[in-house]
């Protein structure tokens, strides 16, 4: 039985493979480092916006997995560069012979698995983010007035800072503020007839007004901010109908935050895809280099033609017998996963 995907590698192509692999490994290390930074950045952003995401929403899983995956990719890149550099030097190669096999297995299983998981999470993120933000922002808006309640007293400050920084107002627009009570009861005069009227005008006894907090104000507006009596066209004289939208921020915070986080996640997803591609190439190259050099018995400068392969000959048969003997009801997938017990010193290619 022939080995899987064999490739004949005489001396010159071997050297070229090692040199190309060295370059590719450094590139992988660079991209892995950048992905590490990107996932760290996403993690920090999600931590900052933690109050506006529902706690049940597991969005933090993506950057954490991406962090682990990019760390493994960085390690693979460094190992690859070291091994390919050593394979060109007869004195440096022997110590690498023992460790290269297990490292390749770890890189493929660990790195590949984590990367696939991270890519899957990146694709699934928009849905979870949408529901999480909907719930989180709704809670934040409802808690805006509770500046005296322990555990919720920061909601006002955080929501004001969010609206100021991200240039948004309410969940989907400024009218969201008309539907909730955002003025604390402590600052409402119970003797004021207007207050009493408003509270009695709705079933839940909420003090609802057609006004918004100051953080909704848009500094680009040419006139001082109009925050109150927004539904009454006669309340503010000389209202210019040509510029109705400059007074407050037009966008809702849901759209703004969703766009912002999705942008970050898609950048991260792209970088993870590139890392995945590079890591596959580096691992394949390392495997071919390793098996070719083993074929020569570890002698680097041997002029002989060695054959590099992915999996040794007879692997299928060996796995079949192992499965039959073990009698475990598992799906045999010899081509997808590398064999767990692969002796680092592979014998000469079988005829």
């Amino acid at each position, binding site marked *: 039985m022939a080995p899987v995907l064999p490739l004949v590698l005489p001396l010159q192509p071997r050297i070229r493979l090692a040199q190309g692999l060295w370059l590719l490994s450094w590139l992988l290390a660079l991209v892995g480092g950048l992905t590490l930074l990107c996932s760290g950045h996403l993690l920090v952003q999600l931590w900052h916006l933690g109050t506006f995401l529902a706690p049940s929403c597991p969005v933090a899983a993506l950057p954490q997995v991406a962090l682990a995956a990019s760390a493994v990719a960085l390690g693979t890149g460094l190992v690859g560069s070291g091994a390919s550099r050593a394979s060109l030097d007869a004195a440096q190669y022997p110590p690498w012979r023992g460790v290269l096999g297990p490292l390749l297995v770890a890189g493929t299983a660990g790195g590949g698995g984590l990367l696939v998981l991270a890519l899957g999470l990146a694709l699934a993120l928009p849905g979870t983010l949408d529901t999480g933000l909907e719930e989180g922002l709704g809670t934040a808006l409802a808690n805006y007035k509770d500046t005296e309640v322990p555990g919720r*007293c920061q909601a*006002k400050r955080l929501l004001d800072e969010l609206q*100021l920084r991200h240039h948004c107002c309410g969940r989907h627009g400024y009218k969201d503020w008309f539907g909730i009570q955002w*003025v604390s009861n402590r600052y409402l005069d119970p003797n004021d007839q207007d207050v009493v009227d408003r509270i009695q005008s709705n079933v839940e006894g909420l003090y609802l007004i057609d006004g918004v907090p100051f953080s909704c104000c848009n*500094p680009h507006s*040419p006139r*001082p*901010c109009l925050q109150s009596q927004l539904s009454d066209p006669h309340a503010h004289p000389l209202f210019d109908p040509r510029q109705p939208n400059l007074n407050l921020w037009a966008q809702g915070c849901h759209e703004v935050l969703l766009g912002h986080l999705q942008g970050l996640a898609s950048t991260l997803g792209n970088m993870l895809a590139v890392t995945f591609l590079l890591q596959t190439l580096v691992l394949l190259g390392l495997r071919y280099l390793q098996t070719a050099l083993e074929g020569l018995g570890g002698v680097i400068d041997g002029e002989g033609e060695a054959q590099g392969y992915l999996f040794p000959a007879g692997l299928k048969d060996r796995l079949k017998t192992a499965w039959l003997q073990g009698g475990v009801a598992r799906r045999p997938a010899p081509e997808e996963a590398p064999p767990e017990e692969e002796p680092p010193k592979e014998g000469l290619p079988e005829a």
Partner: protein
Amino acid sequence: MALLKVKFDQKKRVKLAQGLWLMNWLSVLAGIIIFGLGLFLKIELRKRSDMMDNSESHFVPNSLIGMGVLSCVFNSLAGKICYDALDPAKYAKWKPWLKPYLAVCVVFNIVLFLVALCCFLLRGSLESTLAHGLKNGMKFYRDTDTPGRCFMKKTIDTLQIEFKCCGNNGFRDWFEIQWISNRYLDFSSKEVKDRIKSNVDGRYLVDGVPFSCCNPNSPRPCIQYQLTNNSAHYSYDHQTEELNLWVRGCRAALLSYYSNLMNSVGAVTLLVWLFEVTITIGLRYLHTALEGVANPEDPERESEGWLLEKSIPETWKAFLESVKKLGKGNQVEAEGVDAGQAPEAG
């Protein structure tokens, strides 16, 4: 008697040259950092030049940029010299240039030190520029229709939100100017007419502030208007209320920001200056040690390196003598010519 004599054998000389080569290239990196810091400072000053009436002094960032470039040039040249110092043939062509080059290095170090000092000392001029600029900026807050000033409202609002400040020295500065444009005032209303008549200049003054002065840390919705009228708002006392608006004035906020920036830049420049001084001293030692190798056929010989050939007072006297000689040089020549002509005539 030479100043700070150190003996150098061949190995030590080689080590000194190699160490200096490395330090010079690190210093080129430091020069690039100084250039970057100068550029950053310049950009920060330009970003808020509206608040400073466009009259801020760019002396500090410009000199940092210049010093960064000069440092890169000088240090790469010194690196080349140190690299060639190990080869007597190559060093021979640098020999005559080394003494003037060291003098230039000393001057450069002095100027770098002065620039670092300037970073710390220009705070005072910035304060007066800021006070003046902010006052004018606030005056133009309402001119959102005047071309050339229509962005002042947006600039001041974003400044107050970003730096968490209000007004020039405090929020009461807004009570003294008209910050609401006439275009949005209903002149048929009695209240507006009363306010305009209440002061000499006919301005619409309110005891209110723009929304950007509001402090999000306040537990109650922001009170912007009728700030001095306790009865206008439920459970409000303007004398004890601290969290409603930002308390700091924007002049103090901007000043502290720029002071911190310039202090850090000054500290980094001082560190780079120390590094440069070390390099100049090392280069001087290398120069004198190589001069001490009198016989070029015997490079293994031990030689001595020093900072100054004679002690400081003697060197100063010799320097003055040479300056005087330079002045007397022409006179001596003229006398020599006359003396020459006199015996001929005689």
